[in-house]
C-alpha cells in the first residue's frame, strides 16, 4: 500500500523526521485541520463552523494540552525504555504514583508555604517525579538484574500503583480521593513542558552518543558490549528516563486539577496505555508521539466541547477512536517494529 502523503516534502520537517510514515501523519493532521479552518470560515453557521470554532478556541487548546501532557510525556518515556530494550508496559502505574505523590507532598508542605524558596505546588511536582522515578528504578532492577519477564513486571508495576495510591490516600486523607489543594498549575506550563520534552527527547535520541548507545542496547546489545559500553547501565538509564518523563506527566495531570482521584481506575484512566499507543503510532519518533498524543487528547477535548454545545455525540464512542485507529494501523500498515532485542535479557560475556 503506497502512501500518497509520503512524497510531500516539507522543508524543516524533512530534516527532523526520516520516517515517511510519521511525516505523512503530520501532513495528514495539518491538512485536516487546515481544511476545517477553511470550511469553518466559509460556512460559519454549519457544523463545520461550530467545529472549527471549537478546535481553534483557546479553551480547547487548554484542555487538549492538559489531557495531552500525561500521554505525550509517558509516551516519550516509553520510547526511551523500549529503545533500550526494556518494554515498559507499566507507564500507567508510573503516572498513577506520580499523580498521587505530587498532590500528597504539595498538601503536606501546604499551599502558600515554600521549601528552599520553591513554592509548595512545585515541591509536589518534584516529589511526583521522584516517586515515579523510584518506582521505575525498582522496575529496572527487577527486569535487568533479576531478569524478570518485562511484560509481567510492567503489569505488576501498574497493579501495585493502582493499589498503593488509593491505599495511601485513604491512610492520609481518609478516602481514595484527596481533598482539592485549591491551587493548580496552569495549562501553559504543561504545554511548554510537553514541547520542550519532545524536542529534547528527539535531540537526545538522534544527536547524542547516549542516544546511539540506547538504540544499540535495544537493537544489538552484543555490539554495544563489544565496544565496551555496559548494556545494563544503558538500559537502567532508559528505564529511569521513562520514570522521570512519566513523573512529569503524572504530576502535571494531577496538579493541573489540584486533586488526586483514586476511585476505579484512578484519574489516570488508561492514559498510560494510550501513551503506549501514541509512541507506537508515532513509530518511536518523539515528534510523531507528540502528534499522536495531541491528536488523541484533542479528539477528547473537542468531543467534550461538542457535548457542551448540545451535539449528541456519544462520548464513549469518540473515546474508542484512538484504540480502533491503532488496531487498523497495526493491521494494515504494520509499520511499528519493536527493537530487535526488546524484551530479552542480555547476559554479559566476560
Amino acid at each position, binding site marked *: 500500500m503506497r502512501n500518497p502523503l509520503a512524497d510531500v516534502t516539507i522543508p524543516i520537517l524533512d530534516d527532523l523526521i526520516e520516517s515517511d510514515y510519521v511525516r505523512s501523519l503530520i501532513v495528514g493532521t495539518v491538512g485536516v485541520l487546515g481544511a476545517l479552518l477553511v470550511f469553518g470560515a466559509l460556512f460559519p453557521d454549519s457544523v463545520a463552523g461550530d467545529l472549527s470554532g471549537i478546535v481553534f478556541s483557546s479553551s480547547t487548546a487548554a484542555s487538549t494540552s492538559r489531557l495531552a501532557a500525561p500521554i505525550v510525556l509517558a509516551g516519550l518515556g516509553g520510547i526511551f525504555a523500549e529503545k533500550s530494550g526494556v518494554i515498559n508496559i507499566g507507564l500507567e502505574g508510573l503516572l498513577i504514583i506520580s499523580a498521587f505523590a505530587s498532590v500528597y507532598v504539595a498538601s503536606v508542605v501546604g499551599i502558600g508555604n515554600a521549601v528552599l524558596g520553591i513554592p509548595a505546588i512545585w515541591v509536589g511536582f518534584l516529589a511526583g517525579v521522584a516517586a515515579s522515578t523510584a518506582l521505575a528504578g525498582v522496575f529496572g532492577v527487577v527486569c535487568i538484574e533479576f*531478569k524478570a519477564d518485562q511484560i509481567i513486571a510492567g503489569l505488576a508495576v501498574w*497493579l501495585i500503583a493502582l493499589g*498503593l495510591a488509593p491505599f495511601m490516600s*485513604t491512610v492520609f486523607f481518609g478516602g481514595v480521593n484527596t481533598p482539592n489543594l485549591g491551587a493548580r498549575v496552569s495549562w501553559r506550563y504543561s504545554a511548554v513542558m510537553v514541547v520542550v520534552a519532545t524536542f529534547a527527547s528527539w535531540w537526545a535520541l538522534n544527536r547524542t552518543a547516549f542516544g546511539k548507545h540506547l538504540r544499540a542496547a535495544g537493537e544489538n546489545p552484543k555490539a554495544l558490549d563489544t565496544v565496551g559500553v555496559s548494556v545494563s547501565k544503558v538500559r537502567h538509564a532508559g528505564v529511569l528516563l521513562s520514570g522521570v518523563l512519566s513523573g512529569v506527566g503524572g504530576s502535571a495531570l494531577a496538579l493541573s486539577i489540584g486533586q488526586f482521584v483514586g476511585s476505579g481506575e484512578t484519574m489516570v484512566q488508561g492514559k498510560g496505555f494510550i501513551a503506549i*499507543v501514541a509512541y507506537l503510532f508515532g513509530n518511536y519518533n518523539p515528534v510523531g508521539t507528540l502528534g499522536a498524543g495531541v491528536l488523541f487528547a484533542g479528539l477528547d477535548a473537542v468531543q467534550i466541547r461538542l457535548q457542551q454545545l448540545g451535539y449528541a455525540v456519544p462520548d464513549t464512542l469518540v473515546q474508542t477512536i484512538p484504540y480502533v485507529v491503532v*488496531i487498523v494501523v*497495526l*493491521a494494515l500498515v504494520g509499520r511499528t517494529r519493536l527493537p530487535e532485542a526488546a524484551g530479552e535479557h542480555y547476559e554479559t560475556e566476560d
Partner: protein
Amino acid sequence: MSRSDAGADGGSDPDRVPSIARRVVAPFVDRSVAERLLISVAAILLSIVVGFVIVLISGRIAQCSTAAWTMPLTGLGFCYDPVEVYVVLFNGALGYPFAVGEPGLFDPNWTPFNLSFGLTLSETTLLIFTGLSVAVAFRAGLFNIGTQGQLVVGALATALTVLAAAPFLPEGPAAGVVLIVVGTLAGAVGGGFWGAIPGALKAYADANEVITTIMLNFIAANIAYVLVLEVFRAEGSSVVATRYVPEHAQYLPWFFPESSDFALLALLVGLGFIGGLYYLVEHTSFGYDLRTSGVQAAAAKYGGVNAKATTVRAMTLSGAVGGVGGSVWVLMSEGRWMASVPALGFDGITVSILAGNNPLGVLPAAFLFGILKGGALEIGFRTDVPTQLVGVLRGLIILFVAMPEFFRMAGRFMGMGSSGPGGPGGSASTAEETGDDSAAVGGGEADA
C-alpha cells in the same frame, strides 16, 4: 521441614549435587512444575512480609486516638495491627473457622456454607475461567491481556441470548437447564470471536497481541456500554444494565446463602473446564501443537505445525473460555449484564502467572485470589486498614513471581550465610534447591 534443610545443602553447591527434595519430588511431578510451585509459594510469603511492613509504616503515619498495636520492646504505637490484618484476611475469607483468642483451634459453630466463604468461592469460580483463559494462550506463547474484553463481550452475548430465548420456553427447571447451556454457548461464541480478532491479527498481519488485546479491552468495554445504554437498557434502571435474566435461568445457590452470589454447580463446571483443558493441552495433538509453538515457534513450524492456524485457534479457545467466565458472571453473580464489569480478566492474568500457566495450578491460584477478595471485605468490616491493601498484595505477588532469579540469588546467599533458614529465607532456599534448572524456565517465559 526436610525440604528446607535439603535446600540449604543444595545452596552450598547448587551446580552439581541434586537435592534430596528434588529426587523425591521429580518422579511425581514435572520438575519445572515443582520449581514454579516453590517460586509461587516464596513469592506469596515475600509479599505478605512486604505487606506487613507497608501496614506497619502506614500505621505509624496514620492518625488515630488509640494505638491498635504496640511494637514489643520499643513501645512504639501503631494505628493498624499488622498481625490482625492477616488473621482477618485469611480467617475471615473462610467465615472464621479458626477460633482466635478462644479455647480450641476450631470454632465448633462454623459451617462451610456461610456468607463469607460463599463470596470467596464465588470469586474463585470466576477467576478459574479467566485464569484458564490466560493460561491456554500463554502455553501457545501468546500473551492474552484481552481476557477482560473477551469476558465483557461473552457476558453481554450471554445476557442478550438468554433474554431473547427465555420467552419461547415454559418456565421450569428444564427450561432453566436449556437456557444456561445456550447462554454459556453464546458466551463462548462471543468471547471466542473477540479472542479470534487479535489471533488473526497476530497470525496474518504480525500485529503484537499484547498491544491489540489491550486496545480490544477498551473497545469491548466502550462498545458494550454504548450498546446497552442506547439499545438494551432496562427500563427505569438507574445504572447502565440490561434486564435481569429470569430467575430459573440462573445458577441456583444450593447450600450457600443467596446473597453470596455463589453456586456450587458453577464451581463444578469450572473444575470440569480445568480437567478438560488440562487434558486438551497435555494429552492431545492440538495441545502438542499449542505447546510446541509456545516453546519454540520455529521448531514447531519445521515440525509441520501450522503456526498461523494454531495461533488463531489458541486465541479463539482462550477467548471462548474467557467468554464462558463472562456467562458465569451473568448467570451466577449479577443476573444481568451491567456496566462497570469487575476486573476479572486482569485478575485472570495474575492467577495464570501464579499458576505457572498450568491449568491444574489455576485452581489453587484462583482460590488464593478468591480469599484475597473475600478477605478484603472482612478487612473493611473489622479493621481500620484500607482494603486497597489487598490490591497492593496482588501486585507484589505478581512482581515477585516474575523474578525467579531474585529467589535464586537470595537462596544462594541464604545457603552460604546460614544453614538453618527460617521465615521468608526458608522459602527462598526452597526456591533455590531446584534453582539451577529454572534459568531455562525464566528464558522460556521471556520468549513467550
